[in-house]
């Protein structure tokens, strides 16, 4: 039986092998890599943009960058997954700084259907409720000021540490802390206000 440490080691080895095979030009290995990690990047991008099509484009850009920079991956400084996620976060936040998605698409928000990914599954009230709740959460999150939104997103959705967020955003750790705190409080207030408005109350917990 494998212990946790051995498993971790085996994982690192397979990741290393996968990266090496990709570098040697094995298309199958590259496809495996894309299939394995595209979901996380896609979700990360979606959470930042709240647009499925923008998330798709961003995910493509991220993987093009990964493809170009795969040679600079060093297994000794971290796992392949964390390296990929780091590349993804950096690119998405960079793009975010330079572009003005929100301004460009502010009017077209109504056109976006949030739930077309789940169309195949039959809706029960439970999933409907969850979807509605998720929509409410995402809407609330995106109504926050940029810096608060980023902080909450990276902390509570991506589950990064304060230090990682500070490095990523190039701001002091204290600022990260206060932004997360402020962001959570603001979001809770927005949600409780909207929830009351929409008829979601304390007792409607599922």
């Amino acid at each position, binding site marked *: 039986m494998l212990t946790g440490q051995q498993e971790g080691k085996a994982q690192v080895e397979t990741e290393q092998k996968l990266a090496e095979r990709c570098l040697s*030009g094995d*298309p199958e290995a*590259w*496809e495996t890599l*894309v*299939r394995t990690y*595209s*979901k996380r990047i*896609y*979700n990360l991008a*979606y*959470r930042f943009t709240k647009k*499925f099509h923008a998330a*798709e484009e961003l*995910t*493509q850009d991220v*993987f*093009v960058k990964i*493809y170009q920079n795969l040679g600079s991956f060093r297994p000794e400084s971290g796992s392949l997954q964390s390296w990929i996620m780091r590349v993804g976060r950096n690119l998405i936040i960079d793009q975010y700084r330079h572009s003005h998605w929100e301004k460009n698409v502010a009017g077209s928000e109504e056109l976006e259907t949030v739930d077309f*990914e789940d169309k*195949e*599954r*039959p809706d029960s009230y439970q999933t409907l409720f*969850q*979807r509605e*709740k*998720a929509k409410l*959460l*995402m809407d609330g999150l995106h109504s926050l000021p940029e810096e608060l939104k980023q902080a*909450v997103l990276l902390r*509570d*959705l991506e*589950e990064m540490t304060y230090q990682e967020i500070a490095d990523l955003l190039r701001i002091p750790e204290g600022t990260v*802390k*206060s932004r*997360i*705190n402020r962001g*959570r*409080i603001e*979001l*809770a*207030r927005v*949600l*409780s206000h909207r929830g009351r408005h929409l008829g979601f109350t304390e007792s409607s917990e599922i």
Partner: protein
Amino acid sequence: MTCADFENLLTEYAEGRLDRIVSGEIEQHRRNCPQCHLLFQEVSRLVDDLHGLPEYEPPERLVNAILKRTSGVYKRPSFWQAIVVPTFRPFLTQRFAAATAIMFVFLFMTVSLIGPGLSGVTADDFTPRAIYKHADNFTHSVYHRLQAFNQWTTDMRAELQLWRTDWAGRIDYQIITALFRVYENTQDKQQIKRENAPSKTGEPESPKGQKKEGKPVKKSYLPLRIPIDGAKRYSASIDISHGPDDAPAETACIQSRASHVEFPAMFRTNRNENVRQPL
């Protein structure tokens, strides 16, 4: 401790990062201030909700788009994946299965009510001879249809093969046949004119015809422009020279500008012929 202090320390308190004295003070404040207590509850619930947000499955086209943009290897989805599954997926859900079942029931009822009834059938239809006759007719009709279909598929395949191997020649062929059709048409019209003209005017021979007979070779020039799918414009010209007695054309030369035109990939070959020799 004020409510503002409580708010500032909320996250650190919730994550257990404060020392005992400060968290004691916060506990104290929470007990005394219902608003701050509510806020604390709401923030805790929010963090739980954020952790439980659903992950979305990326569409299949995303992986393909990435592969196409990176390694250039585009994996075409299999027939099953691309056609069968998306087509029949709606029918696999309960709701659609129920709807389909109801539809079949109604169809069955409708057919049994207004469909071919048994009233037109007589005892004569069940004689061995009648049965044999019907079966024979039916078999023959099916056989002929099958044969026609086979012929059609063979023709189409041959045509496709021709296009694939020699698209330039095929285009030339189409143009030449079109030009000849136009040419024949004009000839027919002239013929009709010539036949009609003497009967109308009563003259046995027109001076024009004599003039024409005097010339050894008449050159008719038929420019034609045929727009072809994938090309903006494809122009070709044909020179038809024929003898004094309206003999069939001896030479037909066609100049194709195929190499200047973007064609769909299926027609692209390595040939690079600008001018095609006289047929």
